[in-house]
């Protein structure tokens, strides 16, 4: 069953080379699939596939089994399907549809995610805007603070009290939805624990002037003062922005 062994060798070398390419020249693609903390797995996988490949080559003539090709060939082809999908996966991105499927929309059209509860647990609840779509600008804290800097969304989300009233800059994707209140858009990035499959949208709200039009599903860099967006007994960060700059997707589109 020489042909079967040849097929196996081909599968092994394709996988080994594919993983080796990902970790060397394909890092931009890998960054959209796997948490950098787990990139060693790709190296490991490539090495193990290469060892399997070498062993198959060395023991090419010492086959003791007589496999049924019709039975084994489909399973070998199945092993190559993920690589076939890479042809498509390398050009695609998570989009607004992903955002909708991975968040929970409340009956009044607002969106919620898991981080809101964590924020609520660690912060004093807002005094105003109990269940209305009202942004709370924290005027007191806003005074006298003008320093601006780029902040990770995770940082802003988890320690937003430290940024209240301060001007910060964020890079994120836009989500514009007619269900949201007037002049309110959302700005999000995906938070991943291991890989893109577990990505959860982490979002803040953008309060923009009427004169500004924000395009949906675009990467932006924007700057504004941090305030609180209170909704459904949960407080979330909001930026009071004046303008946005459309930018390229970052090398690492996710936050960790």
């Amino acid at each position, binding site marked *: 069953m020489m042909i079967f062994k040849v097929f196996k060798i081909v599968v092994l070398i394709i996988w080994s080379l594919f993983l080796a390419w990902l970790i060397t020249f394909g890092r931009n693609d890998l960054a959209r699939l796997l948490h950098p903390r787990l990139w060693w797995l790709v190296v490991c996988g490539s090495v193990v596939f290469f060892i399997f490949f070498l062993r198959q080559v060395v023991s090419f003539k010492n086959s003791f089994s007589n496999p049924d090709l019709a039975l084994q060939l489909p399973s070998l082809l199945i092993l190559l399907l*993920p690589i076939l999908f890479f042809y*498509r996966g390398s050009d695609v991105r*998570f989009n607004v549809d992903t955002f909708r499927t991975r968040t929970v929309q409340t009956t009044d059209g607002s969106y919620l995610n898991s981080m809101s509860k964590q924020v609520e647990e660690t912060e004093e609840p807002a005094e105003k805007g109990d269940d209305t779509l009202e942004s709370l600008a924290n005027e007191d804290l806003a005074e006298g603070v003008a320093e601006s800097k780029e902040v990770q969304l995770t940082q802003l989300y988890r320690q937003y009290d430290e940024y209240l009233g301060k001007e910060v800059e964020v890079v994120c994707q836009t989500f514009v939805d007619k269900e949201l209140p007037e002049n309110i858009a959302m700005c999000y990035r995906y938070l991943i624990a291991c*890989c893109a499959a*577990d990505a959860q949208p982490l979002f803040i709200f953008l309060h923009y002037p009427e004169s500004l039009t924000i395009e949906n599903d675009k990467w932006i860099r924007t700057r504004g003062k941090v305030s609180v967006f209170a909704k459904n007994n949960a407080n979330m960060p909001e930026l009071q922005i004046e303008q946005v700059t459309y930018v390229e997707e970052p090398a690492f589109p996710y936050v960790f």
Partner: protein
Amino acid sequence: MYRGKEFTAPRPLQESLGIGLQIIFILYVVFILVMGQTPVWKNLIDNVAINFLAITLEALPFMLIGTLVGGIIEVFVPATMIDRVFRKNRIQAVFLAGGMGLIFPTCECAIVPVVRRLLIKGVPFSAAITFLLAGPIVNPIVAWSTATAYTLSWEVVVTRMVCGYAIAVSVGLLIGKFFNRQNGLLPGLADSAHNSCGCLQPVDIESSLRERLGHAVDHAGNDFFAVGRYLVIGAFISALLRSAVPMETFTSLSSSPWLAILLMMVMAVLLNLCSEADAFIAASFRWVLPGSSQMAFMVLGPMFDIKLLLMYLSVFRKRVIVALSLSTFFSVLITMLALEYFWPGFIS
């Protein structure tokens, strides 16, 4: 000299069915890929592509490591050691197997090849089942990821570990009552002697280290080709569901705790998430669903999901898979209902 037409036995129906299903799967995946070119399907298929690749890239290396560990166990661990540790007292072996993950942390993608080798090596059936279920939960890496996802809420971590251990031991003991190596394993595995899987040359005890390593790699490679396709099929189904089913589908149906538990269990089976990552998804329901339902998701997922179910096909007979699935599912359900009843405010 004319020899006449060579006689070939007809292919068993089950085998033909297996080949047919695999071909249908390949054609379906290619069809999906082609449909992704059309504007209507583009967004969905884009999501499927990213999820499918991401799950495969994360799971496949873990599985490869699992096959290597399995190969090393096959060649280097003497059967006498297995006898000494596991065969003296089978009940004790089950309790021991439930905690083995603490010493040998193994994720759910790697566990099947490892257990396959342990069974070939002679580990008792019930102990192997227990390790299969408990290994991906009762281990320090999963404990840490759970703690991180739940902002160092140690009651969540301890509850997950304890529930995982208790359910795995209970199911292991139960399955061990009705099944053994002979009636539970696939014929090829059940017939294996302790020192050889039967697919390769037996390893001589006096073989050189290089030869033995070579044999270990051979075993690992064979395990990869035996189990790998199930991982890919499972990853694809998971990616499809992850992309097509919105989170709202589940949250909108969560009007009662028992329904929420059931829904989260179904979601755990469908999503096929790695046990390292599932706590982060469970935590995303922290303010939406009761704690017991989040725990149900975290306990059932590493024990029983589509990917694992398909990988089990490379080890167990179908009746064992059915019994294992049902007993695991209902054990988790009963445990979580009890948790909800006795500790309603769990994970507030």
